[in-house]
């Protein structure tokens, strides 16, 4: 009985945390529970959540990807470049996503074929990709992108009153949830993270699984970047810096183990919401951004400590 409670706590703990934080913020601020604010909050969350979904896959294989923010920036800049040169926006976005996939695959190849630890490999590519972005943009934002409806829609549109990025995020979530829970690939992701040698000896091509996982994360990072680009109607060379930290935090708060093999993408969604709600609520309360960092860090720590307890 006690064990049942404990295991269930590990699963719903973050969710309870989210509810508690929301109730507190609701009491402290009249504006928190307004429809506008909630929709605005969800739109803000969608960028981090998309990256964090990919990060969940990476962390499940016992890896880490520090380069997501740089991939976001590079992918956005290249997409913006294509747009400003007059390319069809849908085609440009498509190419942008493929670029993200390819940049992620570079990470995966360095890690598997070069046998470099994920932390080091992506630390290096984080710097390289950021540098390439700065070279490509000459350090200046790319503006005047496109006034096509389709491109504006991605970051600024609404469907039935719901911001399009939120719908995008939920759609991606449902697909990835299915992939992790119901497909052979999802099972392989968990297995490779749980015990790579045993997985290989069971016939799983662990290298391929890892390359795919980093590619997926690269693609989702660029998708998040395109949302930002569309919203601002410009690509910033410094976009996405430090985003890797919020993404990793969302995954960890959601209960996924950094050792790999254990975790759930639902947890990551809740983790991203917790971070988003905190950011939003503390802004509403006019808490200085200095204090905000302290609160956010404290929450991450608390989540991890509670998670430890329940194991």
């Amino acid at each position, binding site marked *: 009985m006690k064990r049942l409670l404990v295991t269930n706590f590990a699963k719903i703990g973050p969710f309870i945390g989210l509810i508690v934080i929301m109730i507190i913020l609701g009491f402290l601020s009249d504006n928190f529970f307004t429809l506008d604010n909630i929709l605005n909050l969800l739109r803000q969350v969608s960028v981090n959540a998309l990256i964090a979904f990919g990060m969940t896959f990476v962390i499940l294989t016992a890896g880490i990807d520090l380069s997501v923010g740089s991939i976001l920036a590079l992918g956005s800049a290249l997409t913006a470049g294509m747009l400003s040169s007059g390319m069809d926006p849908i085609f440009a976005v498509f190419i942008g996503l493929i670029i993200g996939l390819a940049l992620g695959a570079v990470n995966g190849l360095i890690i598997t074929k070069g046998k470099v630890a994920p932390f080091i490999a992506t630390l290096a590519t984080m710097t390289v990709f950021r540098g390439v972005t700065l070279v490509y943009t000459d350090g200046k934002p790319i503006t005047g992108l496109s006034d096509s409806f389709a491109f504006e829609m991605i970051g600024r549109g609404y469907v039935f009153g719901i911001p399009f990025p939120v719908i995008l995020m939920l759609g991606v979530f449902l697909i990835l949830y299915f992939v992790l829970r119901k497909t052979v690939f999802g099972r392989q992701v968990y297995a490779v993270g749980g*015990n790579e040698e045993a997985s290989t*000896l069971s016939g799983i091509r662990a290298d391929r699984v890892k390359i795919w996982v980093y590619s997926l994360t690269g693609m989702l990072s660029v998708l998040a970047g395109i949302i930002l680009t569309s919203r601002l109607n410009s690509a910033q060379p410094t976009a996405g810096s430090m985003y890797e930290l919020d993404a990793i935090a969302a995954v960890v708060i959601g209960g996924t183990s950094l050792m790999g093999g254990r975790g759930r993408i639902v947890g990551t969604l809740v983790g991203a919401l917790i971070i988003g709600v905190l950011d939003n609520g503390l802004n509403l309360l006019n808490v200085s951004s200095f204090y905000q960092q302290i609160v956010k860090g404290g929450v991450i720590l608390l989540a991890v400590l509670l998670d430890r307890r329940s194991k």
Partner: protein
Amino acid sequence: MVETPFVEMINIDKSFSGNQVLKGVNFEINSGEIHALMGENGAGKSTLIKVLTGIHARDNGIIKVKGKKVDFSNPKQAEQDGIIVIHQELNIIPHLTVAENMFLGKELTYGKTGILNTKEMKKQTETSLQDLGATNIQPEDTAGDLSVGKQQMIEIARALATNAELIIMDEPTAALTAREIESLFNVVESLRKKGVSIIYISHRMEEIFQICDRITVLRDGQYISTEFIRETSFEAIVKMMVGRELGERFPARTSIIGDVVFEVDNLDRRGVFENISFNVRKGEILGVAGLMGAGRTEIMEAIFGFEKKNNGTVKLDGKALTINHPSDAIKAGIGFITEDRKAKGLVLNASIRENISLTNMKAVSNNGVISASKENKLISDLIKRLQVKTTGIEQEIKHLSGGNQQKVVIAKWLGIKPKLLILDEPTRGVDVGAKKEIYTIMNELTEKGVAIIMISSELPEVLGVSDRIMVIHEGKITRTLDREVADQEKIMRAATGGENHEALISN
């Protein structure tokens, strides 16, 4: 004259969250006695030891050391009373030197300065190792570079340095070569003469008959009996352990051996093995004997595509195979049960279901999507067929006993319906009852025409189970023997390169 036992445990009870794992267990050991503690996996041996050394608090019962009641609340206190455990997983830090390991946590310093007295530590290490006759270990050797046997000597030396009067050895020979076992037994013998007691936990019956004075058997957490080794027999002990007659230790081979199905020709990997050519026939069990480190596992891993090979061809059903990755081997119908099931065979955090599915992804999915009904059916069937003792297919692997874990590993591979199954030390760390079940499964498989290669370091097992025996020495096949003409002596001679090493024949 009644001697006061060194340790006496009377009527020990212990339960974990309502689950009673020790019920009225008695145990005693005299000074200078070697006492075997036996029982199937899950019988309560480790719990008893943990209660003795204060890792677990007992619910009931009395523990006396030298006639005095004690109440250890941690292993440190037990250590102060001279009781030390040498675990199966050795407590050696690989990057440190032998001397540094010896004095780990109790480093000698110049007064209270915190500056290490390296010279003195080296000197004392040297003396302790000499006392054990382990003169081939130097204090400044890096511990991780030494063989498991030598590392174990460091642990024993460390135990003796703290004036241990009772050393508890948990499966000490599981990873040792025949030569190392022999020198371990010499050390055990000399410890006995010095009055040190040893609790010896092992599944290897031969060893217990060779070195122990008495044996205590546990079954399902209950105390069964304590006997003098010289007054009991193999069959009697097995019966006490499993609670019934087990019959023949090795089931009779009944399969009909057919044509050659699997051929290896001139397999070679520079510096590891060379010129490996052999075949296995349909329904045959080919035993592979050899000393630890002879290259047996490496050969099989190369065949399976897990390790590189420089040369050589592999044929199954007369067709040459290109195997660059285990998935190629599996596709061809080859299964491989690895030696180290925890490191290479299982995902410990995952469930029975997830583990068995790993090798059977095709069978449990449609176009890459897992079918819950197909999966549950396959797993339930396999669990039933192998009689895995479990609370259900969702149970986490790490909560299963060694024997049941091994059955799950076997289940993984039965699902692929292999034509050739390679088993590397299939019964290591598995109790007698489960061992026999594994032999029976092997028999059933061969009856259905599966060819089996079994690597084993236990000679009685190799002789009892195989139809033919191939002996490897330093990466070369030195001899292949038919079951009828094979004996321990011939195998050991071939395994040691043909020299006459009588001492290595361990019983």
